[in-house]
């Protein structure tokens, strides 16, 4: 076999070859290169539809790759310096779930921060693994959740020496990084696997002067959202493995839930984006970091807003900061982040990534133009001029320590009863309540509902957060565990 180079994109090349052969399709998809669905072809483009094809010998098969997908995986592994890379077509959600289900079986303990994405807790419901939560750090002034403290994790490890793995969320949505190297070494000393949810950290593998990536510190598995900072199509991701984690077993786990009709649009987008990052990533992320820094400086000049960065570092729960992130604390303007998020969209035609109670996050990428950054800054200045309120009008904390009564799986499948949310205090929740984005649960299955949590949910609702998670789409009632049947 010839040596592969990062200049290549085997899946893209195979698709191009396949198209040039003008093969007559008597296979799925039934739109037959778009000819059978003209409106769709006109809307998405003929080239796009002509690449929406099925697995076949010249194009390999995602469930059992032996040729071009295999080669593309090897190139991705090389680019990320991993032992192997899996192409994921059901989001980073599926990658996070595959990590947890590979590391743990029913009843196994896994140490994780509570501010994980819902995908991680979903994996616990499916697998029956038992979470040992480590409370994330909380910034006393900004009210934002931080990384995991080494001391807290060590205590959790000593108290739960039978835990199989530790899951680290790095960086957080806000760009905050834990001491990944020290946490990895610590877990390895206690024979635990290190799984990293790196959904927001693709660029760490390619840019200069960015925080450490999971593979670089010797972590065992990582889930990387290529479709966020990596530039591939929405829903496409990589799952990386390292060290002793078995490629074959991991693939079996992935195949438990993954489609057998992996989209070649998603697969080729991963392949092309990997090539682009490997060849141009340094330059791309230098530009992104420069744009983020410029915008941060300009926003900080407005006053009231605080676009934070590395000055927050504290050697532990804020071990490092991802300077490509533009996170802004808005409370001194007297407006909740979610209010600014809504005003930006409704009045200024500017869509940012999310707003929570105290912050907004604007996602900066190589696709941004200087004039768009100016618009964002000018709109924030205008919002302050027109809407600023007393700063004490904003709730000042985001995190409530959970009281875990049951494992997520037990609570989710337990006999349950539906009660009005407002009367649910004291019960054990059987479902999630979260704001989306960011999708970090306020309540997870198995947690005791308290008045404090209900107040917080009511406040989020009042401020206009998009709440989700319960069976009741209006979030007026909640399923709780029937405790006398426990």
């Amino acid at each position, binding site marked *: 076999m010839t040596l592969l180079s990062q200049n290549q994109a085997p899946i893209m090349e195979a698709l191009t070859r396949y198209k040039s052969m003008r093969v007559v399709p008597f296979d799925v998809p039934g739109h037959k290169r778009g000819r059978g669905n003209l409106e769709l072809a006109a809307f998405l483009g003929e080239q796009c539809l002509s690449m929406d094809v099925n697995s076949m010998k010249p194009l390999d098969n995602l469930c059992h790759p032996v040729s071009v997908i295999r080669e593309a995986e090897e190139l991705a592994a090389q680019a990320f310096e991993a032992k192997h890379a899996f192409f994921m077509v059901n989001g980073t959600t599926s990658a996070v779930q595959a990590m947890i289900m590979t590391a743990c079986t029913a009843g196994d303990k896994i140490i994780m921060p509570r501010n994980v994405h819902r995908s991680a807790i979903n994996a616990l419901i499916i697998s029956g693994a038992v979470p040992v939560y480590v409370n994330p750090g909380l910034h006393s002034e900004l009210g934002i959740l931080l990384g995991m403290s080494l001391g807290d994790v060590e205590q959790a490890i000593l108290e739960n020496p039978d835990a199989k793995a530790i899951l680290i969320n790095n960086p957080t949505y806000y760009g905050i990084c834990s001491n990944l190297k020290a946490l990895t070494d610590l877990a390895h000393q206690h024979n635990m696997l290190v799984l990293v949810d790196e959904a927001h950290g693709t660029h760490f593998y390619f840019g200069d002067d960015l925080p450490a990536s999971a593979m670089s510190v010797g972590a065992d598995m990582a889930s990387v959202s290529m479709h966020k900072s990596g530039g591939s199509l929405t829903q496409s991701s990589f799952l990386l493995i390292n060290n002793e984690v078995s490629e074959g077993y991991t693939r079996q786990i992935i195949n438990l839930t993954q489609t057998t009709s992996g989209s070649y649009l998603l697969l080729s987008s991963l392949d092309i984006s990997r090539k682009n990052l490997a060849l141009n990533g340094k330059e791309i992320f230098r530009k992104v970091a420069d744009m983020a820094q410029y915008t941060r400086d*300009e926003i900080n000049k407005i006053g009231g807003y605080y676009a934070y960065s590395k000055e927050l570092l504290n050697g532990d729960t804020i071990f490092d900061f991802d300077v490509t992130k533009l996170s802004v604390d808005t409370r001194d303007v007297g407006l909740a982040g979610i209010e600014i998020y809504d005003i930006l969209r409704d*009045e*200024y*035609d500017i869509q940012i990534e999310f707003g929570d109670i105290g912050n907004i996050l604007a996602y900066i990428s190589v696709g941004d133009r*200087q*004039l768009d950054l*100016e*618009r964002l*800054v*000018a*709109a924030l*200045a*205008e919002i302050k*001029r*027109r809407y600023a309120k007393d700063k004490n009008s904003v709730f000042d904390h985001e995190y409530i320590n959970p009281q875990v009564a049951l494992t997520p799986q037990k609570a989710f499948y337990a006999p349950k009863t539906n009660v009005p949310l407002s009367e649910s205090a004291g019960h054990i929740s059987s479902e999630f309540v979260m704001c989306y984005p960011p999708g970090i649960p306020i309540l997870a299955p198995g947690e005791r509902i308290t008045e404090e949590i209900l107040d917080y949910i009511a406040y989020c609702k009042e401020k206009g957060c998009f709440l989700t998670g319960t069976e009741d789409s209006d979030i007026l009632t909640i399923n709780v565990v029937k405790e006398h049947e426990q």
Partner: protein
Amino acid sequence: MNLWYTEQHSPSVRFSIKVEEQLYSGASEFQKIDILQTTEFGKILTLDGLIMLTEKDEFIYHDMITHVAMATNPKIKKVLVIGAGDGGTVRELTKYETIEQIDMVEIDKLVVDVCKEYLPQTASKLTDPRVNLYYEDGLKFVRNKENDYDLVIVDSTDPFGPGEGLFTKEFYGNCYKALKEDGILVNQHESPFYAEDALSMKRAHQRIKGFFPICNVYQVHIPTYPSGHWLFGFASKKFNPIQDLDAAAWNELGLKTKYYNTAIHVGSFALPNYVKEQLEDAK
């Protein structure tokens, strides 16, 4: 040689001018810049392939973007001009001895350099000692100004490409802030005729109305702009462009203009019904 310049005025309408020679073609980090020698319109400046001005009809645009505000408030002393790299707007403003300071903010220095070389007809007054040239983003410049100008003129390109930010709500809000309590904002307001232009026109009107108590639109005929029917916006914190016009005072100045006069000043605010309806819609 049978060389023609063609601009797409709508997805299904084209406008062509016979070209004698291409005098300049270049690209800045923002846009493509071309100067063509034409038979009918003299030299023309195009940005990203769209006509910005021709020597033959630029007087209409530049007269009407400046003199309406100046005749409404003769006390204007400090003016901010955004865009206007060709210099035509500044040329008209420098006719007023009463103006003390003109700050011109153009994002693209190359446009100014090219116009100075090829279009002295419009660019000749950019060297007037009262003129300060700033090569930066207009939105950024105005964001840092407060209660500073008597008049802001937005002489922008279309609302896509480098001029995009100059049609936004955040921009008009910042202009409001940059103006003094009797300040006037005049802006290039697109056209009511073709659907795409009309949409930009309505959106601009809606956004400006959100900030200024007095908000009017006036019209001109510009032969080389799509449909020829073009609009300017007049927004003010205090002055009404018709009631506050002191025609005698302006006529006494004895300024030589080719299009503007005080009768057309008043008349240009009389709008066709289809334009009035669009402005009503924009409420």
